[in-house]
């Protein structure tokens, strides 16, 4: 079931006018911001389907940028986010795409600064609820509604066991987990949704494993 909580239906509290095109868009932007862990200097935003057709009227553009500035769905500053981004030195470019996406409300966000780049694809599935479907080329399914850890690791046997053993040691329960890879034997991505936020020390312990490249957390 995609919708789990009554507050997916009665909620969110948000700035209008559209839950999917405004609130959902803000949430997609905010997940990208959280994963990037800092304010990007450049943002290239690609809009598909209904997002591409109606983004101006729905404030999808200001909402996505508001999310990149770490604004929540009810933050009144969303309305002025393009101006605020400019003041903070974030360059934003929008691209209206003609390709027909799998889901009608799809956005691809590429954010970067001198230290790195992140590419994310998010879909807004209705009522403000979103899913992240791609991260840096890896396919995944992430609701953004639970704390999660994203583990970039070498695609080899035992990697999953090592990570889950650490979680078990600290009595952390896994709610949802999946593994994705671009090519056999190269880098792979583990997406693990958990029930509680994870301490920095546990993340460090995972990163010290030889099969692990990088661990990123999404805090609830």
């Amino acid at each position, binding site marked *: 079931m995609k*919708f789990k909580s009554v507050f997916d239906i009665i909620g969110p*509290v*948000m*700035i209008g006018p559209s839950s999917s095109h405004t609130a959902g868009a803000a949430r997609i932007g905010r997940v990208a911001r959280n994963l990037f862990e800092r304010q990007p200097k450049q943002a290239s935003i690609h809009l598909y*389907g209904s997002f591409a*057709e109606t983004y*101006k*009227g729905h404030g999808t553009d200001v909402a996505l940028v508001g999310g990149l500035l770490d604004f929540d769905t009810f933050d009144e500053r969303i309305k002025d986010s393009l101006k605020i981004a400019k003041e903070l030195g974030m360059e934003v470019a929008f691209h209206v795409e003609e390709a027909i996406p799998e889901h009608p409300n799809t956005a691809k966000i590429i954010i970067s600064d001198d230290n790195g780049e992140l590419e994310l694809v998010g879909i807004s599935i209705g009522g403000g609820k979103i899913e992240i479907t791609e991260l840096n080329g890896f396919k995944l399914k992430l609701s953004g509604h639970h704390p999660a850890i994203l583990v970039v690791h070498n695609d080899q046997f035992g990697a999953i066991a090592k990570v889950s053993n650490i979680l078990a040691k600290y009595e952390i329960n896994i709610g949802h987990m999946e593994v994705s890879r671009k090519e056999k034997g190269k880098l792979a991505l583990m997406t693990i949704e958990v029930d509680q936020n994870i301490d920095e020390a546990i993340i460090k312990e995972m990163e010290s494993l030889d099969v692990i490249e990088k661990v990123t957390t999404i805090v609830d």
Partner: protein
Amino acid sequence: MFRNVAELVEMAKTKGLPISELMILQEIEVTGRTREEIIAQMDTNLTVMEQAVERGLNGVASHSGLTGGDAVLLQNYIKKGNYLTGEIILDAVSKAVATNEVNAAMGTICATPTAGSAGVVPGTLFAVKNKLNPTREQMLAFLFTAGAFGFIVANNASISGAAGGCQAEVGSASGMAAAAIVEMAGGTPEQSAHAMAITLKNMLGLVCDPVAGLVEVPCVKRNAMGAANAMIAADMALAGITSRIPCDEVIDSMYRIGQAMPNSLKETAQGGLAATPTARKLEAEIFGKAALEGE
């Protein structure tokens, strides 16, 4: 956990609990949060709805100028007293309009289930409030019951105009509201299900064709009629009228109709009312010539 309306009604009967209470119990189970936390969050949402209605009844205007002020017109009309229908139904309509006018003006609202359909549930709630004098707790129960039916629609069909047309947004909102009105008025869980079914049946096929892609025309007036539809369907169900097609099958047909709908009628502003000469003219006025040249 209930997955469809049949299961929800059956659970309510066997446990002897109202639908609102089943929704709260499921929320506790699924999220692990306490009853107090869940009630407190719904109370916050109810307050946001109250404030949005109040703001809309004082008169707002959207940035485009397409919507605003109709809630005020209706309230003034009600005060004159020579209306043809009834005070509660017009009150529901005006409060639904008020909420959506605030939404169109990029004000703060609570999505129920979406922002474009955010007027129906609070509009009907605050109108029947004047007749039934509910406690705050009963008003929260109204929202949990509406949420339970919306939860089922969202998981078995869709609540997104881009995926299922307006029937999935205002249609779902109206069905949710009808079911909740029935519970507040003392009807049975079955009657709630029939009210939802009757409402949604009358919204099947409704397309999403927003002028200039804005959540304004026809969205605000569709919320108005969604509220009216919910009120009448609730009265019909309370009168003992049943839906020959069970609620779950109505929801399923809504999903299939949404699948069959062309993309031009699913929130792309390419078909329906959005493609009329007047809509194109308004679009050009609002976005300037660039909008037309970009086509």
